């Protein structure tokens, strides 16, 4: 074998480290990268990508049978679901407050608080709490959710252009982490980070969600936006240097290819295996683009992605 000199990239920037949990809860630190993912020869990234498992405050209506079967009755109760997620290897729990959606139950602040309380007492992992994504409802219920978890450093989202002030402010007040969500656009992402920083949210309390599409649904955009954010951060741009969270799992299980079990060509194969592969590949892809937290759904896909992370990390 001829000697090949491996070119080493010199980066000037570093991704900020963000700590979730604490206050009696397990702690997980993400971020801190000094080079692109899994390039151990170039620099040592202190924290591996982490897997968060998505749970909902009510039984999912749009999930396919193959995914529901993997969870069984646990999906009927967020506390039980969270416990089961721990068994399946969750490092973080991502709780979506979907029942607050005006068309999905329209529940209010009190219900949001009760669910957060329940999940907090069921498990000791760090928590991510997401509102229904309707600005007015988010503004209404997230302050209550935040209050319930005061001092336990959860990540709260999503901050979008319309509601970042409210969520940013409660994060500041209760010591939580703000998740800044933008639609696949590096400049909008950066702009929102700047606005959150202007609001006073400290640099160690911001996560970015630049969005992605599933494999076949624009994953190249997702890959590219994640990679560009990371390259910019490593290049020294402070306003893109926050850890990245990605909802690869949720994106996959929305799509027809993950759901359809009848009336599709035989070549599509077994529906469960198909969905699991779909999630596995989508998630591994965004991890390779630099994501720090991936939010996943199917236990089998989770197991495989974990193994991939370990392998890439040389474990």
């Amino acid at each position, binding site marked *: 074998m001829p000697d090949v000199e491996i070119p080493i990239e010199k980066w000037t920037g570093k991704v900020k480290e963000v700590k979730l949990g604490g206050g009696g809860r397990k702690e997980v630190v993400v971020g801190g990268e000094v080079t692109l993912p899994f390039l151990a020869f170039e620099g040592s990234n202190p924290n591996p990508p982490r897997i968060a498992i998505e749970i909902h405050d009510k039984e999912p209506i749009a999930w396919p049978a193959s995914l529901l079967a993997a969870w069984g009755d646990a999906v009927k109760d967020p506390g039980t679901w969270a416990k089961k997620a721990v068994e399946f290897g969750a490092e973080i729990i991502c709780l979506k407050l979907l029942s607050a959606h005006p068309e999905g139950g329209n529940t209010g602040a009190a219900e949001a608080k009760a669910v957060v309380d329940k999940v907090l007492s069921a498990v000791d992992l760090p928590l991510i709490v997401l509102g229904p994504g309707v600005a007015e409802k988010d*503004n209404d219920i997230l*302050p209550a959710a935040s*209050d319930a978890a005061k001092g336990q450093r959860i990540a709260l989202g999503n901050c979008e252009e319309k*509601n970042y*002030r*409210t969520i*940013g*402010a*409660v994060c*500041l*007040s209760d010591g939580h982490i703000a998740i800044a969500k933008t639609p*696949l*656009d*590096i*400049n*909008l992402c950066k*702009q929102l980070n*700047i*606005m959150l920083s*202007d*609001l*006073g*949210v*400290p640099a160690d309390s911001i996560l970015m969600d630049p969005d992605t599409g599933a494999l076949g649904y624009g994953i190249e955009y997702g890959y*590219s936006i994640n990679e*560009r954010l990371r*390259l*910019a951060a490593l*290049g020294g741009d402070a306003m893109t240097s926050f850890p990245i969270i990605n909802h690869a799992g949720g994106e996959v299980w929305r799509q027809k290819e993950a759901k359809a079990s009848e009336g599709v060509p035989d070549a599509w194969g077994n529906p469960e295996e198909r969905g699991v592969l779909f999630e596995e590949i989508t998630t591994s892809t965004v991890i390779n683009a630099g994501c720090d937290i991936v939010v996943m759904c199917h236990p089998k896909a989770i197991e495989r992605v974990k193994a991939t992370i370990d392998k890439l990390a040389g474990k």
Partner: protein
Amino acid sequence: MSKFIATSAIRGAQGIVAEADELLQDALQKLGPDTPIAFKDKAGAGTTFYLPVIYGLMGNKVEKLGDLVPVMEHARSLLQPLPREDLWLPYLGETLDAGAATLFAFETIEGIRFTKGEQPEKRKDGFEFNGPISDVQARSWGIQLVDGRMPGFAAIVGAAKSNEVAVKIVRELQSKGQLTFLCADNNGRSMVDQLLEENVDMGYDTYIVPFGSDTTSAIYALGFATVAALSFGGVAPGDFRRILLYNKFRCFAFVLALGPVDDIKYAAAAGAINYGFPVIADTVIPNILPTGITRYEHVVSMPFDDIPGKDDLERAERLVQRCVEVRGIKIKVAKVPIPVAYGPAFEGEVVRRADLAIEFGGKGGMCFEWLRMKDLDDVEDGKIEIVGPDMDTFEEGSKVPMAIVVDVAGRKMQKDFEPVLERQIHHMLNGAEGFSHQGQRDITWIRVHKNAVAKGLTLRHIGDILHTCLHNDFGAIVDKVQITLYSDPGKVAELIDQARAVYKERNARMAGLTDEAVDTYYSCTLCQSFAPNHVCVINPERVGLCGAYGWLDCRASFEINPNGPNQPVLKGRVIDEVLGEWEGVNQFVLEHSNKVIERFTVYSLMDAPMTTCGCCECVMAIIPEANGVMIVSRDDYGMTPSGMTFTTLMATVGGGLQTPGMMGHGKIYIPSKKFIPVEGGIKRLVWMSQNLKEEMAEELKEACEREGVPDLLDQIADGSAVTTVEELLPFLEEKGHPALTMDPII
């Protein structure tokens, strides 16, 4: 700073600090230093912020009487002697320190009253004041303060001229989403009495909170402001500077002093000014106008009876309006108040002849729009005036002359933004259902659908749309908007001459706005979502390549959103004047193109031209055989002499690439004086899309004349006769096109 105010405030502070001191000594003796102190509202809900102003500004946790001793020491240390008769100084520092001392004294006094069970205050008639705001309430309001749902609060001291005025003031404040805090009376009468007599509900629910009857209770307002900064500003207790700044920039509060102002009130006012909260008085007191600590004026006197208005109610409305202005509060109206639907969905609507209720302008008609900047005092926000007959009186299908005159004022408004805002009228009015707007300036053409008139649309609603949209979209530069709609033919004819003179002036200004005349260009990175490495650099003589953003638009956009996609690009040291290459521009483009584009010239097509994204209006490409360039526009689907259609060309240059010899650009770049000057300008143009040639005939003709080639337009081939290079060359030779004899382009 007015010496009178300085003297009064310092005197007031000395008095109140002495009083607090005395009370404290007495309480220490009678109750002992370990007596606990805790603020609570009348319902018993408390706070974890101790005595919040003291905790916030000094960092001291006051939990018992003894903890107040160092606070009073500090307050005393802030007091300066009264200004001497013979000495005139700015006094600002001394006065503000006296203000801070006053706040510490106020909070100390209220704290001591709590230990004695005298707070929250109960009146003999049974009325209970609220006392300080609880944490739970402060959280709920604090969030709204931060996210802008609630602009701020009005701390009202004293009593209004009459009950009627009191109610009007409070209602006006409520309509603007302001919280109202009531503190202090004048000789035993206060706004609380007035509102009680008029049966106005007070309490957290109605956003009207009565604090107490003494001026000292005003401290609860500042306590609330402090808690907001501590909770939502991420500010550490004791970091007084950031607490004050936080409130200056985020909490739109002010003090409204009704009735006579005594020394203690001056001292309290000085305390409020520390927070950036201005004081507006309805009596004669000296103004403090220079801006600095507060956003705008510090102290404004508006003697109630001198306020213009037909009655006291109108005067009250103006008083509140003035408060809002002084504090720089922007009011957002969520919904355009018109009887038809409004939204982007209606922008492309066509009003057909059969559906036409009325039209303004268009062929043979006269309609123009004119937006002009005025002084703040000369514009009455929200005023909409109709001069002439209204919509419902016009004959169906008739054509009526019309003038839309918009007067705007704003502290950040600039004369140069007039045309930028004026051009938005098109977009704003088109959002109304059943309303179609075309053109601009004096070629405006408006058509209104019968259904819209049937639903009750009148001329006034044009004003409503413009007022709402200008505030919502351009609130950063526009503070006040007033609209006048003229449908009286005589008036329109009279005004159109004035407006035309202004258009002319603007044109002259635009013509004078050359690349050389400015030291800053602007960037646009809006297209980076599709073309990650693309940066438009926009100079006065070249628009962004989509044609939508000119230099002035970018400047206004930067003013409106300093973190947005349009950033100033300082030209910096010139590298090559002819090529249009500057260090500053190169550096900016490098930094914003993911370090991909290292060099960038403004004047050349062949040497490091601007990158091209996906949304250019036209693409230009060299035709080496003809020693010239061709331009194809987006709306031309035909073949071009380059052997490629627009779409194929785009696929070659788009996506943020820098391709010497090819470049995307806006239509109005073609007649610009800075049209590829390095390559010889418009004389190089050998072929262009037919539609472009027709659409821009006038401007192009002018440009050709300016360049000394008046016949050029006829010598330029277009898609009607020529679509291949083989056809092009004989055409050019026959016409004697100048490009054939110019220096080789490559």
